[in-house]
């Protein structure tokens, strides 16, 4: 066992558990109270806006949420089919 491994094994995991729970419950309490899931709403509305301008299959849109203690990030990843991929040739 390496020296690093020895210290790492002794590192306590309870404070990590505590912090993860605090972040999680802070979010869950607001969601449960408001009946609505913010991520779900944002996802649906973003999808609707995209659908107005282009045909993108549902599974090509990825919405990711990363909830932190101070800030949360919402990541929207849309795969837009290029003309080549759809079999169309660019104008010569």
């Amino acid at each position, binding site marked *: 066992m390496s020296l690093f491994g020895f210290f790492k094994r002794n590192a*306590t*995991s*309870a*404070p990590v*558990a*505590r912090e*993860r*729970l*605090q972040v*999680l*419950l*802070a979010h*869950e*309490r*607001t969601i*449960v*109270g*408001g009946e609505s899931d913010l991520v779900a709403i944002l996802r649906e509305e973003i999808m609707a806006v995209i659908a107005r301008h282009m045909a993108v299959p549902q599974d090509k849109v990825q919405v990711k949420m990363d909830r932190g203690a101070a800030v949360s990030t919402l990541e929207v990843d849309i795969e837009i089919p290029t003309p080549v991929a759809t079999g169309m040739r660019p104008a010569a």
Partner: protein
Amino acid sequence: MAKVLVVTSGKGGVGKTTSTAALGAALAQTGQKVAVVDFDVGLRNLDLVMGAERRVVFDLINVVNGDARLEQALIRDKRIETLHLLPASQTRDKDNLTEEGVARVIDGLREKFDWVICDSPAGIERGATMAMRHADIAVIVTNPEVSSIRDSDRVIGLLDSKTEKAEKGEQVEKHLLLTRYDAARAQRGEILKVEDVLEILSIPLLAIVPESVEVLRSSNIGAPVTLGSPNSAPARAYLDAVRKLRGETHVEVQKQRGLFSKLFPRRAA
């Protein structure tokens, strides 16, 4: 005036049934008339932990449906005269727990007993919501572990919104029962400490039941731990819990709310 107490947790396997049996027996040992009611329809186990599995004739669903009278379904404990069990059905479905039927059974039990202790099934579905529906007091059984604490938080939200008391604008009195606690491991930082759990859930502590082989030993022989191993640490914890529930001691272990709870108050679900 009878009190209806629900033993609940959200998560399974944290010790609801063990605690129901132990609290029920401990209350009955003080001379109180107690009925313990198993709401885990389809997966009954309170009968087994209480050592009454071979004496079940009628069950909660029979009484709810009016197929049996309450007196016929109640099983009297062989060790303590004032302790009674109303078992769950093993063959029926939880959908048989009708709102009116359960209300009628609880009203009937209130007339006969000092304490009605409802053993909730895991989860937050019908069996669990029916078990907490008429509660005056809730004992939330929690292990010092992340998934158990998260589920307890969810259940506390339900107690504050889906119960009869909550709908009348009143509060169900809530108590935390921390079970399977290993103080040495908490000291080493391997599991969450009592203080951490209390700060996160922000409800008063009823008792800490230490991890112990005596709990398993008692359920093996079909005795509530307060009867099976009356001098063990878990039994003493449950006996202490009962003294607090009866209002003998007003030792509020944790009064002030932690910073976390002030910043993120739990809202009604």
